């Protein structure tokens, strides 16, 4: 009982019931229509035959009188599958024909209409009650001629058809019920599967994923979408956890250092100069803490952004030129160079502010870590269209990053041992990677032999009128001379 209500309450069952009833109704209507039409067609055929016979017999009477008519009727009545004939005189006595009995009033109706009657037919083995369609025709001299067509075959056919149709209807109903039950059971099974898995995921197993059958149906699409959603949730959760872990570890370390410095200054600082120096250090430590905090917040915020936010066509070549223009004097002063190798006026769908930020990060990273001893830093900022993507890269001629470490450095607070001596927090590439992911790609680090290439790609903006205002980038009015 409980099971039954459970089944009847499912959407699958309701849908099945609805479909079966609608289908049955339509089938019944269709079959009735066919039956009706077939019947009509048969009646029309009978009428035609009867009319032809009457006009033939009437001609016979005109040409040869009653004798010829009677002969003709006798001849015709003897043929196999003969029509029905009855010729009566003015008193209503039968003169010729193959009909034994008729309701007598029929013969009075001589308006030429065709009607259905019960009659008894003369056969070899006596009288048989039959149905027929007849028409009565009045001849000159008071004779009445009745011609009809037995309906036995037609009736038989109609009965056959009706039976077949009823059977057909039953088969249809059963078949559709079976099909729908099968389909709904399958559907229910998959939905139950999804519900079951999501319940498990809800109970804390965030790494669980819905099963994908691989046949690309709507359930697969649903499962894939839900899986993508779970992926994102897991990523955000992990990001959150990372941030708290990082705060616990990497922010506590400088805080502890600061605390001990203040403590030392309080207990051992004798002169004002000592205290000043301690305060100065503390101030610097605070500044770097704030910087770390800002960077962490910014990364978390980028990771939580909706992919479309702030995305618009941006002249990315100009962004690159503008960053290059800001930094190239710095490199030139050291004997190095920053060159731009960009296709002109490439427009990409991106968040201009964030892309500028990442370009700056990559350049500053190269300035900090991309230098070999005794060799000036040479940076190349490139931007090329590749199909419908725009590849943007920054290449240095420094020591590069070992292949085994290339993925690791994208994580937060990861700094390679070689760079520990340089100031920094290990957040620059994490931010770049977060921005790259927001744009549907990721930060690619490659060996440039020698040096490092950091590459990310964006979607190429569709070509449109070039006179659109360039208001999205940071570079309001690029003044390139």
């Amino acid at each position: 009982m409980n099971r039954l209500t459970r089944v009847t309450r499912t959407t699958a069952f309701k849908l099945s019931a609805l479909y079966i009833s609608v289908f049955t109704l339509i089938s019944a209507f269709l079959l009735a229509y066919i039956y009706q039409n077939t019947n009509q067609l048969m009646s029309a055929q009978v009428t035609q035959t009867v009319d032809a016979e009457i006009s033939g017999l009437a001609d016979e009477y005109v040409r040869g009188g009653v004798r010829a008519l009677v002969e003709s009727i006798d001849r015709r009545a003897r043929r196999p599958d003969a029509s029905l004939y009855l010729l009566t005189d003015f008193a209503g006595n039968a003169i010729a024909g193959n009909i034994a009995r008729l309701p007598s009033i029929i013969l009075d109706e001589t308006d030429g209409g065709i009607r259905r009657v019960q009659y008894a037919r003369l056969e070899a083995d006596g009288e048989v009650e039959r149905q027929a369609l007849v028409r009565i025709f009045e001849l000159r001299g008071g004779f009445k001629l009745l011609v009809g067509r037995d309906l036995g075959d037609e009736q038989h056919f109609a009965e056959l058809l009706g039976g077949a149709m009823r059977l057909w209807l039953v088969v249809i109903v059963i078949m559709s019920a079976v099909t729908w039950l099968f389909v709904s059971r399958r559907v229910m099974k998959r939905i139950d599967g999804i519900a079951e898995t999501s319940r498990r995921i809800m109970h804390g197993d965030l790494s669980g994923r819905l099963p994908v059958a691989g046949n690309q149906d709507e359930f697969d699409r649903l499962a894939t979408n839900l899986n993508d959603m779970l992926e994102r949730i897991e990523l955000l959760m992990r990001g959150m956890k990372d941030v708290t872990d990082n705060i616990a570890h990497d922010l506590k370390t400088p805080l502890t250092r600061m605390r001990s410095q203040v403590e030392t200054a309080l207990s051992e600082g004798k002169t004002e100069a000592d205290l000043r120096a301690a305060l100065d250090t503390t101030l610097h430590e605070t500044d770097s803490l704030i910087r770390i905090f800002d960077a962490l917040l910014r990364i978390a915020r980028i990771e939580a952004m909706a992919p479309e936010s702030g995305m618009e066509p941006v002249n990315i070549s100009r962004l690159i030129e503008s960053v290059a223009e800001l930094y190239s004097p710095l490199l030139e002063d050291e004997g190095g160079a920053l060159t731009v190798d960009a296709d002109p006026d490439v427009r990409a769908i991106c968040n201009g502010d964030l892309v500028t930020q990442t370009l700056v990060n990559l350049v500053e990273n190269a300035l900090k870590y991309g230098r070999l001893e005794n060799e000036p830093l040479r940076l190349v900022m490139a931007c090329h269209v590749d199909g419908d993507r725009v590849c943007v890269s920054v290449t240095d001629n420094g020591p590069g990053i070992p292949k085994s470490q290339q993925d690791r450095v994208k994580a937060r607070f990861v700094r390679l041992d070689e760079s520990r001596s340089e100031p920094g927090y290990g957040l620059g590439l994490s931010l770049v990677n977060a921005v790259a992911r927001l744009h549907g790609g990721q930060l690619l680090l490659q060996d440039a032999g020698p040096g490092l290439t950091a590459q990310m790609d964006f979607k190429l903006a569709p070509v449109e009128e070039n006179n659109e205002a360039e208001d999205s980038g940071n570079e309001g009015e690029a003044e390139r001379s």
Partner: protein
Amino acid sequence: MLRILIIEDDAGASAYMAKGLSELGHVADQAADGEQGLELAQSSSYDVLIVDRMLPKRDGLSVIETLRQTGNHTPVLILSALGQVDDRVKGLKAGGDDYLPKPYAFTELQARVEALARRPKSGGDLETTYKVGDLVLDRLAHSCRRGDTDIPLQPREFKLLEYLMQHAGRVVTRTMLLENVWEYHFDPQTNVIDVHISRLRGKIDKGFATQLLHTIRGAGYTIREPSN
């Protein structure tokens, strides 16, 4: 001397600002919530308003919007713990003139407040030529002269000098330069601005008897008349 109104609910931060500003010779009033701040701003005239974004009773942005709607165009510096670019944009859209994320160095606050107070009233045209000592910048002809010497400048150098001379005699910070000359909103970890300044200095000061462009340690730069 500037008349400054500080609308900030953190009493400590407010007092710190007020003290610092009065030591510089300015007069600073304080309001602890949005309503009181709006009332004060409407009832007396100030040169600059310093408005915290998140305030009790009335949000900082709403205070600014109300002031602007009633035709009050006193320059506003928004202070906010939210330092993201989109927050900044929101603040400026509401009618703020500058945006300083917390925490900030006092020198940064000072430089920005003084820059705001000196801003030409909205709609008014800027001067077409700037003059500091014998250095002349013609904004229409896009030319620069010092004494009898023509100084050729790159477009960006021109913009940089223009901004410095617009605030002649006052300190401008590196962040202000990055924001106003390059229109970038981030905190560089390298001395990228210093390099541009030293190039500019090489053009306008090198070979001349007096130096006009000065570095203010721990704060930024200033361009000023030789003080003799």
